[in-house]
């Protein structure tokens, strides 16, 4: 091995190390901070030195944060189930049936998923107050449909396009109606795609901020991101960094575990939503 080659290998692994450190460090540091209380918080420790659960106790023992978590879980789950329910049949039609204007319809759906949410904020605000849903989880489920539904339709369509045509032909020869084809033939094949799409839509709904901030007004109806953003201390000047970091770790760890478990599927789903052509 020449010195030149060795140098190249070292440079490569140095780059790898930089990438990994940059990716992981901020969250690692949030965990370190979440275990520090009082003056220990202001020491700038690179390595964990304190292990106190006080911040976690404060956040989870509080009156509102556990409720915020429940609200977030409820809102995100309902949104995803609703979106998947509508998306399965719609994407079958878009992926499997040739009809005029299909390309245009697909582009419209993609356009909606890329909508600047602020553009519908005023109209949605009116709709939600008209329906009497302001400050209720239903307002969020309704508004989240604007990005979860087009996204799930789009990704499921790309997945469904790839299913072999022979299976469907066989079913048609056997006299299956489109409804039977979807529920009995395609759905069992689509489970992995449904899990991926559902998970990605769940993450989107779980992280959403603009609608959650605008359509809720009381502490107990907030979702987790809004609660964390507006978490305040005893006084205006004093930002409770310890509890904020504890709350952040609590809501992020489940996501990271899910993402790591479904790694491959998520990458496939993301790229199906992004690159296809």
């Amino acid at each position, binding site marked *: 091995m020449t010195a030149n080659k060795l140098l190249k290998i070292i440079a490569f*692994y140095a780059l*790898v190390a930089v*990438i*990994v450190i*940059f*990716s*992981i460090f*901020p*969250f690692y*540091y*949030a965990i370190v901070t979440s275990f520090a209380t009082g003056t220990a918080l*202001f020491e*700038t420790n690179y390595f964990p030195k304190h292990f106190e659960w006080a911040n976690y106790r404060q956040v989870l023992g509080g009156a509102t944060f556990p409720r915020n978590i429940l609200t977030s879980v409820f809102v995100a789950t309902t949104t995803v189930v609703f979106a998947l329910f*509508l998306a399965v*049949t*719609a994407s*079958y*039609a*878009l992926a499997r049936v040739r*009809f005029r204007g299909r*390309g245009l319809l697909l*582009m419209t759906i*993609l*356009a909606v998923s*890329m909508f*600047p*949410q*602020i*553009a*519908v*904020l*005023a*109209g*949605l*605000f009116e*709709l939600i107050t008209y329906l009497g849903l302001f400050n209720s989880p239903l307002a969020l489920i309704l*508004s989240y449909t*604007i990005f979860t*539904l087009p996204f799930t339709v789009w990704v499921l369509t790309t997945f469904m*396009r790839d299913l072999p045509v022979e299976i469907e032909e066989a079913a048609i020869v056997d006299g299956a109606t*489109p*409804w039977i084809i979807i529920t009995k033939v395609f759905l069992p094949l689509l489970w992995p795609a449904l899990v991926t799409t559902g998970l990605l839509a769940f993450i989107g709904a779980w*992280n959403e*901020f*603009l609608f959650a*901030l605008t359509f809720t007004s009381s502490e107990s109806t907030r979702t987790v*991101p*809004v609660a964390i*953003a507006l978490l305040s201390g005893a006084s205006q000047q004093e930002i409770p*960094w310890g509890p*904020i*970091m504890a709350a*952040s770790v609590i809501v992020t760890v489940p*996501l*990271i575990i899910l*993402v790591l478990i479904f790694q491959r599927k998520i990458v496939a789903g*993301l790229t199906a939503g*992004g*690159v296809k*052509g």
Partner: protein
Amino acid sequence: MTASTTAIGRESGRSLQQQRRNAAILFLAPMLIALFCVAAWPLLRTVWFSLTDTSLNNLYGGRFIGFDNYLRVQTLSNGTVRYKGTLVDPAWWNAVWNTVRFSVVSVVCETILGLIVALVLNAEFKGRGFVRAAILIPWAIPTIVSAKMWAWMLNDQYGIINDILLHLGIISSKIAWTANTDTAMYAVLMVDIWKTTPFMALLCLAGLQMVPRDIYEAAKIDGINPVKVFFRITLPLIRPALMVAVIFRMLDALRIFDLIYVLTPNSAATKTMSVISRENLIEFDKFAYGSAQSTLLFAILAIFVSLYIWLGKVDLSGEAG
């Protein structure tokens, strides 16, 4: 096969097609109705509000005032002409400039860094799976959480970033990253690039993996410089995937709200179109004025996307391929 059986076959084929098309309409209807209710209708209402003087507390009391929220020309009694409305509002143009600056810089940086990370992940080495898992972490963290995490790391007094930079001798005194108007935009860019480079990297990687390996082998045998291989072979081949990834990120960047709202609240140096629109809509009780600004944002995005797809010949639907 006789002529009559083919005719029957065609006949039943047509009715089958018809049956499938009818089913398709039925299958699409619920989704289309839902999208109409949450997207098209609210958008139309927003546009309508922008042409009225509606206020937040009285959504139905607005009068039609034409384009006054956008631009109103007033001729005063002494003959001087005054212009009012969003289109002559310096705060709005500041927000437009912030948004454009943020989007261009962040997307360019993310694309370059994303490509580098993707090239690393496309190479075969020990621990590749681990690195791929690691870069998914910033992507998985909610934006608000990453904003708070970085706000803490960028804290002027106790932040670790200042500590590191001081120890490395890069800065001589602590910087108030998020509060200082000169550095606020850098802070926002830093967090956004950190958070979204993984997405870019994964999309680039998907593009790279479609490039057949034997091309590299052939180039290697011919002794072509790897840098040349990248610019002459790899880049043109992944260009379609890259173009799609860039438009997705660009649209995301142009509508950014949450990161800026949380990381640098009320800073004119970072306020984007989405932030200023919401401020007027909800907080300042200028509902119609905010509607006009969000309508403008929508129009700008629509024009930008159309131009991009048209000029870049991007195939988003995948129908062609």
